[in-house]
């Protein structure tokens, strides 16, 4: 095995172009488990820790946040929790404090596990993934187009993930996850919601209940057509939203839960998260917090 230690982003891209078979390592919280248990033996490791710019985030001219692939979950929670509340909630459920000190959204994207906690809020909040290669430069990939299969993403072998872009929340956002305890849990299934009141639109993300993280598109379209933004939440509408969310999942039976349980839980979490978000919106708490 080789251990490549680029000092700059340009060096990292050159190294990945030259040796596309090496595996990038950021926080190491996934990669090192595979190495320790000898389930994977990459030709080399490409350590991205030395590239200081990856561990930074910025507010861009268009108002969006650009968060480097090396920003840890702990920093995301502490520094961006107010502007990316859905993603911060999901981040708080990742592993343990020690894991959150090392793990990153960039690494979660690189692993592209259907159970990754950051994916549902990235989908619900219309995140865009910035990837780059030495040969073709930057590609901006919407989260919804990024996940292609179990642990497969749109990332090409010569590309690296540089950042994700996301607008600060324009409305309430919530994340819910089912597991056996509060810490150190790989999601049995999860659900994220993001209200976009100005556009009269709701974003969703389903985790760990399909080969990839995915949006519940029919459920989103249903709310866009039927939700009365000035009224109380109609129980029949809420029930239908849950059904459509569950129908969007295509779960399997595995060690963490059955497909039937996951479908049921997705419906419950869809109803709950919409209810929480609706109460926050109607109570005016979101505007007060944002203002």
């Amino acid at each position, binding site marked *: *095995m*080789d*251990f490549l*230690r680029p000092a700059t982003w340009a060096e990292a891209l050159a190294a990945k172009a030259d040796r596309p078979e090496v595996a990038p*390592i950021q*926080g*190491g*919280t996934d*990669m*090192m*488990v595979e*190495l*320790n*248990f000898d389930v994977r*033996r990459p030709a*080399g*490791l490409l*350590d991205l*820790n030395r590239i200081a710019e990856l561990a930074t985030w910025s507010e861009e001219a268009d108002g969006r946040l650009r968060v480097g692939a090396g920003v840890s979950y*702990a920093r995301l929670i502490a520094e961006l929790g107010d502007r990316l509340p859905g993603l911060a909630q999901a981040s708080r459920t990742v*592993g*343990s*404090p*020690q*894991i959150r*000190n*090392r793990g990153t959204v960039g690494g979660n994207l690189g692993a592209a596990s259907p159970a990754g906690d950051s994916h549902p809020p990235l989908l619900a909040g219309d995140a865009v993934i910035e990837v780059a290669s030495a040969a073709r430069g930057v590609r901006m990939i919407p989260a919804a187009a990024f996940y292609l299969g179990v642990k497969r993403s749109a990332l090409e072998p010569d590309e690296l993930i540089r950042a994700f872009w996301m607008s600060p929340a324009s409305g309430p956002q919530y994340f819910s996850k089912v597991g056996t305890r*509060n*810490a*150190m849990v790989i999601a049995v299934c999860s659900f994220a919601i993001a209200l976009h009141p100005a556009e009269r639109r709701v974003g969703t993300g389903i985790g760990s209940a399909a080969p990839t993280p995915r949006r519940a598109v029919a459920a989103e379209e249903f709310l866009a057509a039927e939700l009365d933004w000035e009224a109380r939440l109609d129980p029949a509408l809420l029930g239908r939203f849950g059904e459509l969310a569950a129908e969007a999942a295509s779960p399997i039976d595995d060690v963490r839960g059955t497909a039937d349980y996951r479908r049921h839980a997705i419906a419950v979490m869809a109803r709950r998260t919409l209810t929480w978000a609706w109460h926050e919106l109607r109570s005016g708490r979101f505007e007060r917090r944002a203002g």
Partner: protein
Amino acid sequence: MRVTFTVNGRSETADDVWEGESLLYVLRERVGLPGSKNACEQGECGSCTVYLDGVPVCACLVAAGQAEGRVVRTIEGLADGDRLDPVQEAFVECGAVQCGFCTPGLVVQAHDLIERIPRPSDAEIREALAGNLCRCTGYEKILDAVRLAAARRAGAGSGPRGEEKGSR
């Protein structure tokens, strides 16, 4: 490969390090610091918790090469010579140690907690220690030890209030 880093204030160099090796393995097997324990090797148990550039991490999940040039502090680096760190003292006094395997990780993690939050609530203590598994104690005496260490530390800082038991 060769890895050079600072451990507990001393510069250490390890040779013939395998590229896929963990920082934990280097500490235990190459640098002679077996205090950080090797239990799960997957970040589940927290027994290998060390400070990396001042931030607690699972040493089993840091690639050895990622520690190059960086500063590591292990359980061996908490005591000042023969004088135990107040967190270590509190663990001894409260009977928070049974088999002892989880203790180094818990002590480092608790040490970081009261550095950041001098008077942690019970909820904050539980959250901070959520990644550290103990199969002996049932955690109650560990919580007692963290409360005692925090109270002493806060007492020492604010003078007349002295030692206070309790969590807030």
